[in-house]
């Protein structure tokens, strides 16, 4: 697994505000890396620093070991969707992609290919000012894919999409990673990244809170609790406690068991001739894991509500 993007000690101030603060992380090829944090945490600033649009006050970013501005054909190394609305409203979709293609000596055939790829071939001649957010997002993704780059950055790509669009983009992101590309996707909602992200970079107040694999995060948090539903709560409780489990009753017909695997619980219950209506292992949701992870940052959310950016 090779490192596609490496950020080291990135720091960026705007006036007195520290937008990004000593941030270090990496993005690997073949994985979807979720870039998560509340609004105003510094995600978009970090994306601009990666693309060399803003200059860091300290630290650096390397794209496959190079500085961004030294890339010979940036569109063929990094594709980015920063802001889907950032097109000239009077320019046709195809013309927008064409000027971008020309800037890196890419062919007009490639323009038609990416329009096809995002399902926008029919809208190629339309002016972008009339596009819905979903269409603008697709055009932005087409632009990011122009140079067939091994690294892709998407800033809040799911924001504002309809359910069809959300499903489309989730599948696309997984496919891009499966093709071996490094995909960095930012979101202020951890739930959006559930089932997409392999890796998480969590930031708050411009600082790194954690970089962790999603599976490691979930397994470290799930402590093996099993839920049992039965009409014979007292009897089952006694049987399982007798086998060394810690059992708590959560309602008149439900128990939460830790210390025993589901298979063992089922066997014990039937050995005692008791009835079992439902048995399932508790699964940690990414959202819950995120809340645990960012407990320290909750203070920040409460302190400065509704801050945008």
């Amino acid at each position, binding site marked *: 697994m090779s490192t596609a993007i490496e950020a080291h000690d990135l720091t960026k101030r705007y006036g007195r505000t520290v937008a990004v603060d000593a941030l270090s992380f990496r993005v690997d090829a073949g994985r979807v890396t979720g870039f998560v944090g509340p609004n105003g945490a510094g995600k978009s600033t970090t994306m601009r620093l990666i693309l060399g649009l803003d200059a860091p006050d300290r630290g650096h970013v390397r794209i496959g070991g190079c500085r961004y*501005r030294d890339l010979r054909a940036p569109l063929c190394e990094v594709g980015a969707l920063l802001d889907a609305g950032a*097109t*000239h409203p009077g320019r046709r979709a195809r013309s*927008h992609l064409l000027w971008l293609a020309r*800037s890196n000596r890419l*062919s007009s055939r490639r323009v038609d290919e990416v329009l096809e790829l995002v399902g926008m071939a029919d809208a190629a001649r339309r002016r972008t000012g009339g596009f819905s957010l979903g269409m603008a997002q697709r055009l932005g993704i087409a632009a990011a894919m122009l140079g067939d780059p091994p690294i892709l950055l998407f800033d809040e790509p799911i924001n504002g999409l309809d359910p069809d669009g959300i499903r489309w983009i989730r599948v696309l992101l997984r496919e891009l990673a499966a093709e071996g590309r490094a995909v960095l996707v930012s979101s202020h909602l951890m739930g959006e990244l559930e089932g997409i992200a392999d890796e998480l970079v969590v930031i708050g107040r411009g600082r790194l809170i954690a970089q962790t694999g999603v599976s490691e995060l979930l397994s470290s948090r799930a402590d093996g609790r099993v839920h049992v539903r039965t009409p014979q709560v007292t009897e089952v409780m006694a049987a399982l406690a007798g086998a060394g489990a810690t059992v708590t009753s959560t309602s008149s017909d439900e128990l939460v068991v830790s210390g025993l695997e589901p298979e063992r619980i089922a066997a014990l219950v039937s050995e005692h001739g008791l009835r079992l209506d439902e048995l399932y292992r508790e699964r940690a949701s990414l959202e819950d894991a995120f809340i645990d992870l960012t407990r320290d940052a909750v203070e920040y959310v409460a302190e400065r509500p509704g801050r945008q950016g």
Partner: protein
Amino acid sequence: MSTATLGGVVARAGAPQALRSEWVKFRTVRSTVWSLLLLAGVSILFTSVLTGGSSTEGGSPGNRGDNDIILDSLAGIWFGQIAAAVLAVLAITSEYSTRMIRTTFAATPRRRTVLATKAVVVTSIVLTVGLATSAACFQIGQWLLREGGFNYEGGYPAVTLADGDALRAVVLSGVYLGLLALFSLGVGAIVRHTAAAITIVLATVLAPVIAMGFLPENLAEPLEKFSLMGAGLSMQQTFDRPDNIPLEPAQGLAVVASYGVVTLLVALWVIGRRDA
């Protein structure tokens, strides 16, 4: 990193690519065509109105009148120039207002290359259309002036583009428009805001002309010589008149070129130094 090849051609983001890219940008927005049509249309319209409305009498073949009929026929340029300025400002500020500039700079990290190639595209197109416009103004203006009595019998020998002074005035009027576009693009790149940039450009062009009317002569003269329009007017002068701008055409050209070149150099300097 691997060298990317798509369709057999090695991709790269250098100056030739930026030039082609800027040309696609320029020709694929409607405002370009509209502005260029306005530049030509308004110039020809005002030349027609001004020359069609003037007449002379009392002159004779042996008694040359003192009107500068070449300069008069090119007067429409001073009205059409606003379209050239707005076009050039929008070529850069529309990228900032739509935030498309970030896509541009991500695709071509060499920002000075972007601005320089944009300047080449905008200036050369405005220059080309400007030359055609000033030639058209000249032809139409001369015809209307002849009709109004500015002819051989009235003391005005016919002038054509084969005449050295006429050709120089027509060419320099087109060059003026190209340099004005360069200046406007530079202002747009420095302030990055459409309304602010247009205001600054129009104020630079028009304010000295307005002020000249109110100032005593000792203050008005430097204003005439070192203002964009005053220097521009001197490039069209072909006849010695007391109200002429006291500049040779070459000196006027130097002043106008300085506005364009200095502003662009400042823009090139700042564009690489700040966040996009």
